[in-house]
C-alpha cells in the first residue's frame, strides 16, 4: 500500500526522518505506514518534551505555575493533551488549504475525560482496545469513512510523567482513576487518505 507523495512534503519528511522512510535514493514515494510512523514520532517527541521539560518541571518540580484545561482563565499552562490538540486543529485548518498534504490526527481514549474523545469508528474501537491489551504494539488498518478510504494508524499513548497520571486520576470527569506511570492511557489516531 502506498500513496504518491508530493515532493514538498516528501522532501520535508525525508529531511526529518532521513533514510528511515525514504524507499530509495531519489524516490518520491514512501510507504503510507512509514509516513504515519514518522508523523507520530514527531508528534510524540514534541509532546513528551512539552510534558517533561515544561509542564512537569514547572508544575510538579519547581511548583511555580499550574497547568489547567482552562489555562486562559486560570493564567496557567495549557495541558499537554491540549497542546497536542491545538496542533491537530491547526493541521486540520492548514491541510484544508493544501489538500496535497492531507492527513489528520487526534488523541483518544477508552477512558476519556471529554466523552467526545471516546472511540467513535469501528477501527478506533478495535485499535484502542488492541493497544491497551498489547503493550508496546501499534495498530494499523484501513477504513472507509464517508466516501473516503483511509489508512488508519493507532499508537499507544503512555503516561510518561507523573502529572499525566495524577491529573487524569483526579479529574472529576475521568472514568478511570487508577492509572499508573507507564500505563497506556489512550491512543494517537493518524489518518491518511488512500485510494481504494
Amino acid at each position, binding site marked *: 500500500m502506498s500513496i504518491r507523495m508530493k515532493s514538498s512534503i516528501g522532501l520535508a519528511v525525508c529531511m526529518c526522518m532521513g533514510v528511515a522512510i525514504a524507499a530509495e535514493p531519489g524516490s518520491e514515494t514512501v510507504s503510507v505506514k512509514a509516513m504515519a510512523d514518522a508523523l507520530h514520532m514527531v508528534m510524540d517527541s514534541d509532546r513528551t518534551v512539552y510534558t517533561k521539560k515544561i509542564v512537569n518541571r514547572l508544575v510538579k518540580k519547581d511548583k511555580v505555575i*499550574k497547568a*489547567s484545561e482552562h489555562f486562559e482563565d486560570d493564567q496557567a499552562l495549557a495541558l499537554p493533551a491540549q497542546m497536542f490538540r491545538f496542533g491537530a486543529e491547526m493541521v486540520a485548518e492548514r491541510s484544508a488549504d493544501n489538500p496535497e498534504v492531507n492527513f489528520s490526527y487526534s488523541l483518544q481514549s477508552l477512558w476519556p475525560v471529554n466523552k467526545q474523545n471516546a472511540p467513535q469508528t469501528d477501527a478506533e474501537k478495535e485499535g484502542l482496545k488492541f493497544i491497551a491489551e498489547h503493550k508496546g504494539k501499534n495498530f494499523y488498518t484501513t477504513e472507509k469513512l*464517508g466516501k473516503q478510504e483511509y489508512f488508519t494508524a493507532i499508537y499507544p499513548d503512555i503516561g510518561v510523567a507523573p502529572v499525566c497520571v495524577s491529573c487524569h*486520576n483526579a*479529574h472529576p470527569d475521568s472514568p478511570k482513576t487508577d492509572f499508573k506511570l507507564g500505563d497506556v492511557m489512550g491512543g494517537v489516531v493518524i489518518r491518511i487518505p488512500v485510494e481504494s
Partner: protein
Amino acid sequence: MADGRLQQTLWIVWLLATVGLAAWLGNTMLSEKADKGVFMPGPLTPGHHQLQLACEACHSEPLGGGEVLQEACINCHGATRKKPFDSHPVSKFRDPRNADRLENIDALHCVTCHTEHRPEIARHNGVTQPRDLCAHCHGDIAAERPSHRGMAFTTCAAGGCHNFHDNRSLYTKFLIKHLDESALLDTAVIPQREFAQLLDQLEDYPAGQYPVQVLALQDADADRGVAAGQQVHVDWAATAHAQSGVNCSACHQPQAPDGTQPAWSEHPDEQVCSRCHHLEAERFTRGKHGMRLAAGLPALQVSDARLPMRADAGHQTLGCNSCHGAHRYDVRRAATEACTACHNDPHTLAYEGSPHADLWRQELSGDLPAGSGVSCATCHMPRIEFDVTDWLTRVMVDHNQSANLSPNSKMIRSVCLQCHGLEFSIDALADRQLVDNNFSGSPALHVSTMDLAAAEKERRDSEAGEDGDTSMFGF
C-alpha cells in the same frame, strides 16, 4: 390547416416569450445596476436586512453555488468563527472520524443552520437557527451528565449555558468558582483602555509621520482661513489627538506613506480614522452600525433601522463622526448621548432613570473614580482584551456593538462580571422585563444554572480521591 397554423403561431409566441424572459432574467442577473428583487426568495432576516437588494454582498458571483455563499459568510464572520472563540470550528467536522455526523448534519456550511431569507423562523435575536441543533450530536448527554436528564433540547442555550460557536462562557469549574457571589462585587470597576500606552508597539501606527508629542492651540496647522482660536481648534486642543501629535493636517490632509500630501479634505471619512484606529474601524464594520460599509454600500441611515428609533434622527447616517463628533472626539458623549440621540426603545428610554446611569453621572462629576460608571458603551461596546496581532494584546473598546448582543448571555463574562456576581448576572439577563427597564430592580426569575453547579460541587467534594495534589491542576 388552420389548426396547424395556430399551433405554429403559438409555438413561435412561446419561443419568443421564453427567449425574451430568459434574456430579461439573464440581463437582470448579470447587470450591475439592475434591481434584482425578482430573484429574492424572501425578505432578509433582521440580521442582514441592511443588505436587502445588495445581493452581491453574499451572492458575489451570479451563478455561484454554496461555496460562494460560504465565502461570503466567512468574509464578514470569519474572525469570530475561529478558535478560541468557536468551540465547533469547521476543522473539527473535517476530521474523518466525524464523517457520520456530517452525513447527519452538514456542519461545514453556515447555511445548514442559518437560513437568511426566512425571517419568519428567526429567533427573537434575529438569527435563524434550528432549535434542535445540539441534539443531533449530543442527544445522549444525560448519560454523560445525569444532571441534564429530562432537559428539553430547546433549553440548551437557556440562561447562557451553551452556544454553538462560543461555548466557553459557563463551564462547570467556572460556575463553581463563582458560586455564592453577592449581586454586587466589591471591585466594581471596568478596565482602562490601552491605546495610548501601546502606541510604540503598534507596528502599523504611523508614528514616523506623526510623532507622539503634545500639541497646543497655536500649533494647529490648518491654513484654510480658519483662524487659530476658533471653536474647532479649541475643541481639538483638548483632545487626545492634540496630546498625541495628531494635528489638523493628519486627518484633513493625511500623508501617503511616500510622504506626498493630498489636497485638503473638508470632511475626512472613516478611511482616515482607520489609518490609526483600524482595529476599531474594522470592528465597527462588523456590527449593525457599520456593516453596510463593509459591503461597499452607503452608510446606514437611521430611518432604515428596524429597531425603534427617534423620528428626528431618521436622516442621520452612521460613521465614526456620528458618535464621536468631528474635532471634539468626546468619548463620553459617544458612550451615552450618541446612543440615546437615535435609539428609542424601552431599554434605552429607561437608562436615564437606572442605577447604571446614576453611577455614570457620578463618574462624570468626579464623585466616583474612572471606570465606576456604567454608560451604554460599558455594556454594548465593552473594553475587552483584543489580540492586535498573534503576539500583542491590548484593552480596546469593541466597536462591534452587536458582538455580545445575541444571545445577551454573551455579556456575562465580558461585561456583567466586572461588577456583578455570576448568579445575579444570569438571572438578570434572562429577565426580559428587567432588561426593558434597564436593570432598575432585581431579577424576578431564577435560572437553575448555579443550582446545578452547586450540586456538582457537592458531588466532586464527596468523591474527591486520595490523590492529595490536585490543587496544581485547574479542574
